[in-house]
């Protein structure tokens, strides 16, 4: 079980939105994590520096929260390592073919009512829910 956290989830979601708006207003870029990371995977995009800077910020932020606020970040990864590798490979292939993930399509694309992003989001939300259902309730897994 995990605790229902409507307020901090809403606040965190709002921060994700602020980051997306800021990156668009200042750099004219979509805050899609798979797209930003994909541009660093060889052969890297020529504009790799801002991508690396964004990712560095995203990596450092949780540590700063732990160091300078009283906020506790709960974390629990119930998935065995071999399945993390399988899941990671599938995610890497999927987001590259599908041109985005939950941040790029789900937040940035949906926010500007992009038909492609709405279709992509419906597609991955259904697939994710179906996968979790099959793993947990058909196969009895994690």
């Amino acid at each position, binding site marked *: 079980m*995990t605790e*229902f956290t*409507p307020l*901090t*989830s*809403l*606040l*965190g*979601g709002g*921060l994700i*939105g*602020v*980051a*997306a*708006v*800021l990156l*668009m207003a*200042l*750099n*004219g870029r*979509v805050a899609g994590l798979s797209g930003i990371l994909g541009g660093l995977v*060889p052969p890297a995009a020529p504009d790799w520096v801002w991508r690396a800077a*964004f*990712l*560095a*910020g*995203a990596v*450092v*932020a949780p540590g700063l*929260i732990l160091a300078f606020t009283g906020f506790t970040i*709960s*974390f629990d990864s*119930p998935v065995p390592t071999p*399945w993390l590798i*399988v*899941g*990671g*490979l*599938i*995610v*890497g*292939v999927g987001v590259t*073919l*599908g041109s*985005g*993930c*939950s941040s790029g399509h789900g*937040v*940035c694309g949906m*926010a500007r009512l992009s038909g*492609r992003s709405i279709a992509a989001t419906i597609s*991955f*939300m259904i*697939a*994710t*829910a179906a*996968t*979790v259902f099959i793993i947990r*309730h058909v196969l009895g897994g*994690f």
Partner: protein
Amino acid sequence: MPRILSALVAGLIFGAGIAVSGMINPAKVLNFFDIAETWDPSLAFVMGGALAVTALGYFLVLKRPTPAFEKRFHLPTKKRLDLPLIGGSALFGIGWGIAGFCPGGSIPALGLGQSSAFVFVAAMIAGMFAVKLVRSAMLVRAVRGRA
């Protein structure tokens, strides 16, 4: 320099949002999708908060002629719904459902020093690299075929 600094600040706020919202926690993500048993609706609030702020902010920002530090807005130009979009997204969903990590959740989780995040991100990068390899091989073949 301003472009790099602004990207860093946006990344910091993004990572903070992921950590505070609970999207960094695979157990929470998986419970959101498990309506049948241990449903935790929190992530609907993450989506709601993020979409509300981004929709309003984009509405105001995209009215301007250019972003502050770039010559133009870099927005996707494709309009067609095609198989790579729908099929690739479905694949992403399957992987997300298996691991509980999405790209945006896993990168900040690296900063928590979680070994599961390192395993996931390494595999994800390998998957991205594999698609790039296949695509460039297909491109080479297409160019040779034409020559």
